[in-house]
């Protein structure tokens, strides 16, 4: 459900676009000449810059119809509009992997993906891995091998690790290290993360 913040209709029933035209755009131009103000009033483009876009996507099997500004990243949409806090914001620049989610089965950095570019896509986050109380095999393996310390990078590590195995890049420790290089762990839990992935790969379960 879109929350109130997503509603393009303001509290007074006026559209957001009208509101912006009469406030932001005009306020910014009060020192300008009346001609400019008039031009801005008629300029749909200025209002369009603040416009929200409709967006439909599926997250962890649940369909959502939302409204977002184009500048909202998939990461911020997940955390702030859908309140799925499992996906972490680390660097917010695609360098740490804490925000890793699956889009149509492929692992990506959600901090560098604009939400509007995910129209019609199926997103899986860390919250979508377990089935009820039954943890995903990769989650079980991370617990068994102590594949974390502070835990902040762990959701991203696990989402990445699932794909690492599915892609066929978990055949030995060196290959795992290479194909997990997009996930940084500042606690240094790497050896245990590699062990967890090796176990899941050897287990041969369908992921």
């Amino acid at each position: 459900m879109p929350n109130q913040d997503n509603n393009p209709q303001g509290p007074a029933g006026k559209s957001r676009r009208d509101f912006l035209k009469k406030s932001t755009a005009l306020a910014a131009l009060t020192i300008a000449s009346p001609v400019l103000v008039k031009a801005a009033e008629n300029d749909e483009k200025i209002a369009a810059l603040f416009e929200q876009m409709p967006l439909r996507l599926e997250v962890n099997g649940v369909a959502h119809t939302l409204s977002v500004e184009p500048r909202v990243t998939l990461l911020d949409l997940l955390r702030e509009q859908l309140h799925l806090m499992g996906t972490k914001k680390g660097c917010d620049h695609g360098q740490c992997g804490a925000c890793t989610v699956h889009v149509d089965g492929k692992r990506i950095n959600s901090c560098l993906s604009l939400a509007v570019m995910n129209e019609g896509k199926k997103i899986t986050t860390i919250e979508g891995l377990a089935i009820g109380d039954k943890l995903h095999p990769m989650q079980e393996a991370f617990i068994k091998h102590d594949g974390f310390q502070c835990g902040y990078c762990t959701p991203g590590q696990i989402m990445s690790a699932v794909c690492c195995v599915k892609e066929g890049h978990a055949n030995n420790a060196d290959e795992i290290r290479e194909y997990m290089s997009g996930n940084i762990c500042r606690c240094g839990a790497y050896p245990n993360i590699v062990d967890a992935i090796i176990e899941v790969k050897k287990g041969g379960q369908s992921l």
Partner: protein
Amino acid sequence: MINFDYIRTFTTKAAVDAKVKSASSQFIAGGTNLVDLMKKGVTSPDKLIDINGLPLKQITADAKGILIGALALNSEVAENAIIKTKYPLLAAALNAGASPQLRNMATVGGNMMQRTRCSYFYDITMPCNKREPGSGCGALQGQNRMHAIFGTSEKCIAVHPSDMCVALAALDASVHISGPKGDRKILFTDFHRLSGDTPELDNNLQKGELITGIHIPANAFNKTHYLKIRDRASYAFALVSVAAALEISGNTINNAKLAMGGVAHKPWRLTAVEKFLTGKPANKETFTAAANMAMEGANTFGQNNFKIKMGKAAVTEALQQAAQKI
């Protein structure tokens, strides 16, 4: 991030038309570099034109070579069976770049369009002629450990960060482009520019033009290697990289292609060294002589002096590794 208008396009014509209409618009495909640059305030387009709906994902091969659609993902190209068997240099270069997550987002066209990772370009409080022409170059007498040693100008000493592009430069690829005046093709080595007096221009695309694909001609290189030297074992930009493609029969080099990354404002093709290698025996002596030749004309800036020694070693090693391939 400053907000912007966003439209989706589904044909090359619609995308090009939209770009021509809006001066400060940009195409977006994977967005792995552009979104980052927008967050940092390095670029603030009024409008993003999403081109992901364009039919430019196909990879098609025939006897003449292979055509890779501009929207093919870096990971898809690296894992493509024909690329892996017939153009392994490209697969190796792609896999040396970025991380698995980024390769799942980044497209081939986007990889070519990525901007330099020079820290002065990224820091909007610093002077940078590429970001803001006329503001000066912070790197020239500043932090320039990662910077260029070939083809530099006093305006800009940044390097092009791509690995993929180094392999494509070596493999004589060409770039397919659509624009308001129709379609055209240019050699890959003519796509990117040296910084010169206009460091703000990374490439030779004209107004409204869109990359639609990359063509690599079929080749007979039986020994190739992509060597990348960086500060950590994976997921870091190159200090120096080398793409080497050799056609060896018996012990004689019949044909050689060589390009370097991390050393210039564009993938640095070494045609004179290629000529030198042709007809020579594939041995250490040849490779060392080639490496010395490769570094002729290098110009360093203090912190990146090491790149000459590293570059020599890298060229020797890449050629040796290539020659040893079965």
